[in-house]
């Protein structure tokens, strides 16, 4: 079975993000970029499925400018067999991404598509679900466990109430949650080999997809500064502050 993993290049999770002075966007100049943590988990899951013999080939896809090839090479160093770079300078919206991936899926015919549940820059959590709708495939999102048996994907989902188990007929779409696995490190011999693995470059036009912009970002602001706390000298003073400044309603017990 072939597995497609879609990955995104994002600001490194550990970076202290700064907002541009004109509040138009986040400042990306000379900032460390990495594989989106949930996408890393998706790549790891695909590799594990290949290691147990369920998958025969892993194709990793990413959409963006030339720089995303760095993340595709990292994914190949971790174990993906080949990469597809869909080149665009535009920041594609989730629906655009889903449409592009649909075209890839149509030509590659995988048995499984694994994606991160959301990216840590836009936090949309939409692509996996939209892809499933466009392809008409079943979806198992927020997966904390994935097993492939008899042409079905058994997915355990993390939901607010606990864990939910689904059985999906393949081909299917799975999105990863944090506890699915712990990604491995890229080892040097594999990093070197990855340089020679095949990387195909396509444009949205090649895939007959027109990237339409439906959403415009108006403003980006840093969260308001947390106010410094104060110390009070007595219980009466505390009650007074709670009532009159913090506006918390206090009721007598009993």
């Amino acid at each position, binding site marked *: 079975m072939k597995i497609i993993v879609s990955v995104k290049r994002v600001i*490194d*999770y*550990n*970076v*202290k993000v700064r907002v541009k002075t004109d509040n138009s966007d986040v400042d990306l100049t*000379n*900032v*460390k*970029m*990495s*594989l989106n*943590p949930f996408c*890393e988990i998706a790549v790891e899951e695909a590799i594990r499925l290949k290691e147990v013999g369920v998958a025969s080939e892993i194709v990793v896809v990413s959409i963006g400018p030339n720089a995303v090839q*760095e993340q595709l090479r*990292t994914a190949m160093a971790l174990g993906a067999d080949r990469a597809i770079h869909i080149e665009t300078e535009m920041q594609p919206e989730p629906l655009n991404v889903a449409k592009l991936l649909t075209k890839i899926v149509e030509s590659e015919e995988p048995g499984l598509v694994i994606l991160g549940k959301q990216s840590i820059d836009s936090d949309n959590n939409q692509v996996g679900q939209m892809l499933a709708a466009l392809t008409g495939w079943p979806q198992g999102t927020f997966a904390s466990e994935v097993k492939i048996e008899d042409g079905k994907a058994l997915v355990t989902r993390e939901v607010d109430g606990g864990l939910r188990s689904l059985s999906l007929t393949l081909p299917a779409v799975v999105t990863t949650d944090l506890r699915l696995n*712990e990604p491995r*490190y*890229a*080892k*040097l*011999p594999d*990093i*070197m080999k990855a340089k020679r693995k095949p990387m195909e470059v396509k444009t949205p036009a090649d895939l007959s997809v027109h990237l339409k912009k439906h959403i415009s970002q108006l403003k980006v602001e840093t969260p308001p500064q947390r106010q410094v706390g104060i110390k009070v000298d007595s219980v009466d003073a505390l009650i007074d502050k709670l009532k009159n400044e913090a506006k918390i309603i206090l009721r007598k017990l009993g």
Partner: protein
Amino acid sequence: MDALLDAIEKVVGEKNILRDEDVRSRSADWITREPCLALALVRPVNVDQLSQVMALCYEADQPVVTHGGLTGLVRGAVAASNELVISLERMTEIESVDPVGGTLTVQAGAPLQVVQEAAEQIGMQFALDLGARGSCTIGGNIATNAGGIRVIRYGMMRDQVLGLEVVLADGSVVSSMNNMLKNNAGYDLKHMFIGSEGTLGIVTRAVLKLQPQQSASQTALVACDSFENLIGLLQHMRQTLGGGLGAFEVMWRSYYALLTEESGRHNPPLDTSSPFYVLIESLGNDQGETAQRFEQAITSAFEKELLSDAVIASSDAQRDRLWAIREDIEGLSELIAPRFVFDISLSIVDMNTYVNALEVSVRNIWPDAKVVVFGHLGDGNLHVSISMGEVNEEIRIIIEDLVYKPLQAIGGSISAEHGIGIKKKNHLNISRNPGEIALMMKLKEVMDPKDLLNRGKVLPDKTNL
């Protein structure tokens, strides 16, 4: 006694002189966690108060111990029951930051991490970094001339200090708060206090030098199959990174296997079969360029067979996980308690022979003893832990002999960065000759004739000379 404490209370206020349980509940030795036995603990809020307190102590012949972050490793902050502790915990202000001059002025009680963050805010960096960053204070870093993980690139704490303000044994204040890079007017007094471990004066404020930020970092954990290759790797990385080498931390297999596979505390990124593991980090300005140069350096090292395997961190989260293995001193402490800890420096080329000989000599007496080695190899500094199941004075004397004697022969130091404190004072003569020690004692006599400042530390007991 009470008269002194009453007088001190008038200076700092009732809330800022602690006694009894409030003092016992603190510990000046984070390894033994023994309670602080001092007769009281005083918390002045600024140099005026501290100076007044010290003057009162001087009048009363009251010995004093200075407290910072209490993360020292040589019992330098331990106080006897007749000693008074002066704690810098209320003097934590960052007073000013100068982005043009590249300096930061701070009170000595400020934690290292706070200073690092303040420098980051103005797009610069404070170039000292060590595992205790969240707790250790600038004053403590100065008093011990701290080292850490960036010494290979930026030098020790001494190299980051431009100026100091110090309270002397008699309470007088010497302000040497120079903020210029170049000032050759007379003797450079600050250097006397840096590394003096609180025995010549109490540091209250400092002017620190900042470096340009190197926001791009690349980290790899590599395995070497021989010491010869390890040395070759160090030279190779120095050369190919062209000044960009930011850390070269080595773990002998004894450390790496213990903290990963044997204890399960960390997942091993590389298998545990190699004799040496190195955490290599490069620092640079441009993300892309730094990454490319680093990958090339590691790849060419691999092609030259200087390293046998490597993982490169692909995100800062992975970087943190690699460092966590190297910095898990708490874990090491737990796993081989009780242990003897040594912080030594010697020529890099002598290290392997020295460690092998040490293992042999220890195992001759205790066949099951653990000898765990790791450290800032690039700086010529190793941390050695020896554990044989128990700790007592008899064993300590034997072990110290086994560790220190061979060092003397090769001109090594019994204390690379941790200082002398109480633990190592009677071995000072191994790394300092009689002429040096005599001059140190003269200096102490001049600066602190009543022997009030951190009594019984650093310099050997006169009877032991």
